[in-house]
């Protein structure tokens, strides 16, 4: 019983820490959603972006498969999660692990540099990703506005 009381106290303290604390956020500039020019939409609502990158929507309106590409640049990725996904990195990672271990989705492709990322998106039908707003885009890639 004493141990149960101690556990309750521990939980209470944890709650106080949660209320008082928080994860500091580093603002990294705006991000934009980009896609291969084969993608049959020119706009995506924030809700659509969220549902796509959480694996809940897998096809474009023309039934082409959505190919998700993740940006490994820490600041861009963090800003993208804050602005669109409303999840922490670990929660986002957990969603894809769930998809992966239940066979309900493949781990998205990840690219280390902006150059690699835009090159991949330009060459891959149905590809969608995100990038810092000041990156120059090649042919084959378009911006999806909200």
């Amino acid at each position: 019983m004493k141990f149960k009381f101690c556990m309750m106290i521990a939980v209470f303290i944890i709650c106080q820490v949660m209320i008082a604390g928080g994860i500091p956020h580093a603002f990294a500039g705006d991000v934009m959603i980009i896609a291969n020019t084969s993608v049959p939409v020119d706009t995506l609502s924030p809700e659509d972006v969220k549902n796509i990158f959480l694996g809940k929507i897998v096809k474009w309106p023309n039934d082409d498969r959505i190919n998700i590409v993740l940006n490994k640049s820490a600041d861009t990725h963090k800003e993208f999660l804050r602005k669109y996904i409303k999840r922490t990195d670990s929660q986002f990672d957990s969603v894809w692990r769930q998809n992966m271990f239940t066979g309900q989705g493949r781990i998205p492709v990840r690219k280390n540099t902006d150059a690699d990322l835009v090159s991949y998106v330009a060459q891959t039908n149905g590809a969608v990703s995100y990038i810092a707003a000041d990156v120059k885009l090649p042919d084959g890639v378009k911006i999806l506005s909200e």
Partner: protein
Amino acid sequence: MMPVEVARGEKQMNRSYTIVIFVFVVMVTAGNLSARAEDINIHGFISQGYLKTNQNNYLAETDDGSFQFNEMGINFTTYVSDRLSLGCQFYARDLGDVGNDEIVINWAFAEFEYKNWLRLRVGTLKIPIGLYNDLRDFDCLRTSIFLPSSLYNEWIRDAANSIKGMEFFGTVGMGKAGLMEYQFQTGAMRISPDSGTSLFLEKTHGIIVSDIRTGNANNMRLVWTTPIDGLRFCVAGLHPDQLKIIGTNGLTIVNKDIYTATFSVEYALRNLKLTAENWWTKGKTVPYVFGKPIENQIINNDHNDSFYVSLGYRFTNWFEASFYYSNYIEFKNVHEDSNELKDHCLSFRFDINPFWIAKLEAHVMEGEFGVFPDNDGHTYNEWMLYAAKVSYSF
């Protein structure tokens, strides 16, 4: 009993070799991932845990401490075309006398993607009950070592694990009302006579199970992701035709008119996660002796008294903790310690790196459902369970 124990010993030795070979294949395969990443996705995991109770035995010989607590799996998925994908997962686990590292096909299906709102899967499918039943095999997907037993009871895990059949599922956008995900599945249930369910019946009711016959099951799950960030609701249902457990001593137990439903709510915002789930079950249990029903032992069960509430928080990118209170009742209006289990569980998870995690957990228990006498031959209504686990996934 001796010949059976010797045979079991030899079986365990063979299974040990199987484990070594399995782990070797996993490690070799993992090293080749990058070469085959574009063709076949390969992922896997392996976990090893330790259980200890201060009294009672629970799930294993925990009074002395037990390392008979591990899981491993490897899965393969690939797209055959833009619309068709294939996948399967091999899985093995050991928890006390259950599993014994026997490799089984955990899931295996072909999936056809017609539209976002209509997809079809056929094969061996995980049963979607509650929010987490289809995820319970994967230690890396949660904070705690054990999911709350009020909905995810380890003893009867096999009874709600998978079906062989087909499933229609999809995602329907509802505009400002959010998103609805649905699953409807039908197929044949699979419960092995060597399952935890059988072992539990043997230990609690003295039934030596020779066969388990199940009919078809119709299952469903709806998950509503609301417009409020992080808030979702879920309702799931499981309806098997019947469950017939055949014993070697002329005893047969038939469960019929079985309906099970779960009602769930989850709120996840940034590093905080709150979850509550409730389990409703209805069914009739009729024991037969050499074909004749034992009238005074027929049980009509209908209650929704099992539930849990949970709170979790990620403090840093390598540390998170959770607490849950779980209340499990097996039969309504049966006021015996062996009919219920209350569980206060505090868990800590440490993400060592993207592949390795470690967990520590303590349970303060009241009740004796699923509990067996400890070394002094007694069971105790108030007891503690400690658990530790290390997992690797890729």
